[in-house]
């Protein structure tokens, strides 16, 4: 459906509210806060992949002028509760500072508190830790072997999670299908590292018995987790969600860091701040993302129609299981991609190694899975000699088939994949790209065109939580909004979470403006503090356009209903005789009789005598709603509805490769994109371009490389290569709008868009370039050295 928008404000070009403060240097980031008497923390990190901590001597450190305290892991462990794990692993304790054993190079073992960060670092060098080096394991496949060194000896093995589901008649479909193929695809450890590291300041006020926290955080149930660890009531933990977060893309969870500074501020009775430096951030923090080996098997017929898919995903989780292993769970929501595959088998394994822990990364495991699925699809095309576009056309779900239930139980809400592909192919001009590719080839370079068609499950019905942990019976993933109309008629709306660039203030204003028919620029959107906030599940799972937009619209509708009720009472007419127009209310057929917005607000606030009997004074409303399709536990066979909405994206890049150096250049890039109704076009464009840039990074540049001794070799921006403006091309974006039937305005999520299909598309393009040479790569990132070695590993001198 692409009819002309009937919306007043939704989908219209509008400046993003938040931006004004950012362009004038007036953003308020966590590190900008200065509290009187504030102390600074630096961490002492273990240099070993695995070591027993025999003793820690802090005498020299504490003697440094300006040092206030040195907190060891042992002291902290005695005084707090272990942190929550996403899995049921009672033998694996996760603590903010290592105690007894340090399990990865860079793990924090002590925290030094001083007047300045400089002094804290001086003293951190003087904390004497006596270590005994222990055996360690870095390779997840070795870690699974029975005699492997144990990351957590108490547990008895290194397997955090190992489960296989079979949905549909997988064996039958494989035996009936005339063809099958298998391949291994590798997604390496990388993540969406923000430019701002994690920063947190905590201040304990003994008089109010309140712990105030300002943090650059994006974490569901963050205040509650801090309260639980510190054994405080949640009402004594006040997280200030109005802090601007300098990028997160899922990563900024910060529980360990926050527990440390919170413990310290309570102990020292001074505000305590910890701003990770880049090394603490990349080696010690939670900046790593999925690190996955996919063993794929697909059954297909003579027409290239896929019938069944088997996936074994082995994920190197690193040291501790926070929420990270659940990133194997989200892909269950779209385990067969956008394809009409009848049955699926999914074997998910989360393995522990002596590496930095993973955290959530944009897409929560979906981007790697999409890459693996697309690699399979491209391989079938190659085996059968069918075009990559054609093979997809044959397998994509058709627009009239929605809602479409996939084998693992999720129902896709809506889509028009073929039309998006049509529009993309027309705009990208595939034939012209082929000509351009062939011209580049004639000039002596390699060149290839990529294609990927992928889904973005959105809305954050996170039923992978109970699926992966039977003791977790969470089925509630709500979002809330409170709207208040002040006495002068101003509209304020409150959300219960922080933002890290998603434009939530604009989202609230536009959604409310749409319902109340008031100019969004006049609507104030604010972030509550956690103590006053209504329930929120935070901006994860590409959910806020759906969930916060829906909550805001729900609250606005309640305001509108109150206004109508007031007007009906004053006109002594039934509500259905009244017309709401731009906040004023008219009597149908008699526009002379009306009450203006200001008059109605005045009645609500000041004229109780004109209010319907029994009405609450004032004009305010709150709405908390459960995610559409949420609220159900998984069935015994593991089928469950996960995520309500499914956005679709198709990518077409053209790359050229210097065959002598392995350097890849992206010459052209097009994306066809359908996330239903768009709330703000600029925000969706930005999210998509940013996601593509992340995807290009994952496909070509970014990797947390470890050496054989378990040392992180890419622990700074010198070695972990984030693409710059030179590496990222301009992208042509082609929009299509298939509304979701499940959401207020037909919107779907777009917070992860671009990232979910770009790695697969780049891989497809590189492999198209390599095809004439009979070579291929299925491992990301496809670094210059990997490509060059593949091409020239055995070649004698070339002269270029």
């Amino acid at each position: 459906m692409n009819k002309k928008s009937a919306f007043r404000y939704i989908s219209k070009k509008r400046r993003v509210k938040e931006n004004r403060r950012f362009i004038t240097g007036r953003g308020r980031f966590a590190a900008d806060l200065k509290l009187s008497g504030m102390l600074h923390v630096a961490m002492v990190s273990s240099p070993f992949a695995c070591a027993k901590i025999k003793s820690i001597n802090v005498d020299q450190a504490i003697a440094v002028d300006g040092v206030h305290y040195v907190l060891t892991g042992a002291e902290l462990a005695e005084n707090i509760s272990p942190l929550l794990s996403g899995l049921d692993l009672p033998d694996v304790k996760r603590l903010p500072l290592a105690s007894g054993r340090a399990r990865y190079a860079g793990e924090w073992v002590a925290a030094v508190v001083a007047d300045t960060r400089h002094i804290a670092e001086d003293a951190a060098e003087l904390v004497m830790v006596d270590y005994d080096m222990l055996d360690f394991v870095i390779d997840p496949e070795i870690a699974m072997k029975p005699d492997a060194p144990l990351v957590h000896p108490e547990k008895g093995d290194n397997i955090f999670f190992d489960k296989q589901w079979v949905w549909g008649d997988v064996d039958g479909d494989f035996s009936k299908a005339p063809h099958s193929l298998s391949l291994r695809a590798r997604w390496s450890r990388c993540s969406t590292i923000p430019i701002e590291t994690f920063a947190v300041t905590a201040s304990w006020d003994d008089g109010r018995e309140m712990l105030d926290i300002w943090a650059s955080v994006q974490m569901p149930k963050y205040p509650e987790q801090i309260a639980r660890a510190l054994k405080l009531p949640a009402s004594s933990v006040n997280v200030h969600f109005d802090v601007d977060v300098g990028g997160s893309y899922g990563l900024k969870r910060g529980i360990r860091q926050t527990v440390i500074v919170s413990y310290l501020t309570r102990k020292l009775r001074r505000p305590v701040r910890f701003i990770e430096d880049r090394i603490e951030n990349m080696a010690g923090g939670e900046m790593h993302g999925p690190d996955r080996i996919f063993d794929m098997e697909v059954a297909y017929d003579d027409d290239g129609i896929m019938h069944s898919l088997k996936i074994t995903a082995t994920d190197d989780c690193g040291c501790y299981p926070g929420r990270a292993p659940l990133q194997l769970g989200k892909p269950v929501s779209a385990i067969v991609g956008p394809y009409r595959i009848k049955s699926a088998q999914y074997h998910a394994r989360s393995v522990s190694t002596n590496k930095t822990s993973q955290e959530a990364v944009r897409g929560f495991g979906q981007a790697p899975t999409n890459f693996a699925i697309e690699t399979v699809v491209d391989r079938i095309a190659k085996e059968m000699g069918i075009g990559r576009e054609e093979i997809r056309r044959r397998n994509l779900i058709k627009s009239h088939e929605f809602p479409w239930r996939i084998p693992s139980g999720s129902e896709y809400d809506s889509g028009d994949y073929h039309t998006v592909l049509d529009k993309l192919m027309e705009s990208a001009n595939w034939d012209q790209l082929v000509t351009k590719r062939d011209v580049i080839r004639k000039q002596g370079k390699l060149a290839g065109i990529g294609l990927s068609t992928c889904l973005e499950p959105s809305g954050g019905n996170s039923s992978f939580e109970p699926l992966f942990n039977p003791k977790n019976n969470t089925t509630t993933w709500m979002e809330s909004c409170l709207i208040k109309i002040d006495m002068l008629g101003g509209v304020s709306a409150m959300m219960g979470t922080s933002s890290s660039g998603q434009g939530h203030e604009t989202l609230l204003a536009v959604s409310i403006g749409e319902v109340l028919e008031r100019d969004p620029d006049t609507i104030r959107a604010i972030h509550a503090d956690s103590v006053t906030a209504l329930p929120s599940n935070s901006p994860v799972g590409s959910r806020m356009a759906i969930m916060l937009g829906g909550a805001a619209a729900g609250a606005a509708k309640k305001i509108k209903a109150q206004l109508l009720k007031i007007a009906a009472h004053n006109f002594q007419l039934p509500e259905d005789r009244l017309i709401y127009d731009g906040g004023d209310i008219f009597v149908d057929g008699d526009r002379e009789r009306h009450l203006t917005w200001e008059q109605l607000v005045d009645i609500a606030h000041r004229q109780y005598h004109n209010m319907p009997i029994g009405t609450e004074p004032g004009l305010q409303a709150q709405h908390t709603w459960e995610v559409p399709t949420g609220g159900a536990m998984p069935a015994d066979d593991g089928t469950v509805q996960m995520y309500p909405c499914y956005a679709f994206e198709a990518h077409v890049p053209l790359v050229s490769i210097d065959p002598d150096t392995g350097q890849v250049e992206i010459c052209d890039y097009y994306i066809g994109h359908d996330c239903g109704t768009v709330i703000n076009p600029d925000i969706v464009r930005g999210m998509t371009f940013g996601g593509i840039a992340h995807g290009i990074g994952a496909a070509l540049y970014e990797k947390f490389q470890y050496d054989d001794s378990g040392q992180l070799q890419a622990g700074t921006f010198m070695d972990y290569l984030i693409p710059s403006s030179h590496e990222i091309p301009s992208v042509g974006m082609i929009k299509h709008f298939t509304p979701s039937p499940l959401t207020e305005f037909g919107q779907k999520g777009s917070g992860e868009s671009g990232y979910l299909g770009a790695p697969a598309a780049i891989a497809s393009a590189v492999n198209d370039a390599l095809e004439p040479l009979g070579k291929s790569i299925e491992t990301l990132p496809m670094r210059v050295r990997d490509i060059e070695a593949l091409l020239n590993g055995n070649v004698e001198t070339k002269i270029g």
Partner: protein
Amino acid sequence: MKAAEFDYVKAKSLDEICLFLSQQAGEARIIAGGQTLVPLMAMRMARPNTLIDINDVEELKGIEITKKSVIIKACTRQSEVLESVDVRRSLPILSDALSHVGHTQTRNRGTVGGSLVNADPSAEISLIARLLDAEMTVHSVRGERVIKAANFFSSAMITNLDADECLTQVCFPIWSSVRTGFGFHETSIRASDYALASAAAQLSLDSSGQCRSISIVIGGATEIPTRISETEEQLMGSDLSDTEIKTAMEKIPEMLEPQADVHADADYRRRVACVLVGRALKDARERAKGSLV
């Protein structure tokens, strides 16, 4: 990521720099642009007792161009040299190479001398210095000496400067022959990354098109910028045909013992360095013939 404590002095003259250096007996470091030193200090991989700031020493700034040479004072910003029309006219290979040094913001601060004494194996300015056998002038309280580029670099990140010496200028000779051409190529992962490998060539042809003088140097793939004299000798007097170039390059791979790091292994650097030498030679040949600008 904060530096360890240090003392700071601001030098006002070259004499003062030399005096400070002699008093500090190896514990002091000169800071000019600081584009490499400051990050190393932030990570506490460098921790000098004293920093001697030479940014106010005017006698260490400026560019002098004669018919025979381009002289660049040590504390001249890389951006100033890159933007100099005169340098581009007199020594275009230097301008070309400089455009690959970091990016605008680091070039605005980074100095030519700073890059040379830093002696990074992949540094472009060092590569060109070695290619042209530039002359480095260094000063100390003991006096002045001139070090040829061939003797300037000792190993990766180490020069043959004594602890009390300060580099004051570098003199790049200009080849007088009309039929001279150069080539410069480097490979990096991202546009502004350090080169994984680089190569530069300069050569002159006589009127019959035969090679009369030639210099070839490899960077990134070796500890220090390395002249490939065997190839040079083979190509002297030749027509520099593709075949001749290829034959002359055959021994290069075994001459190189590149370092491996997280970005590239030794084999990669070795192979790519050879490719880049070939490209640099061809560009140099074409420029010498006037068929490439």
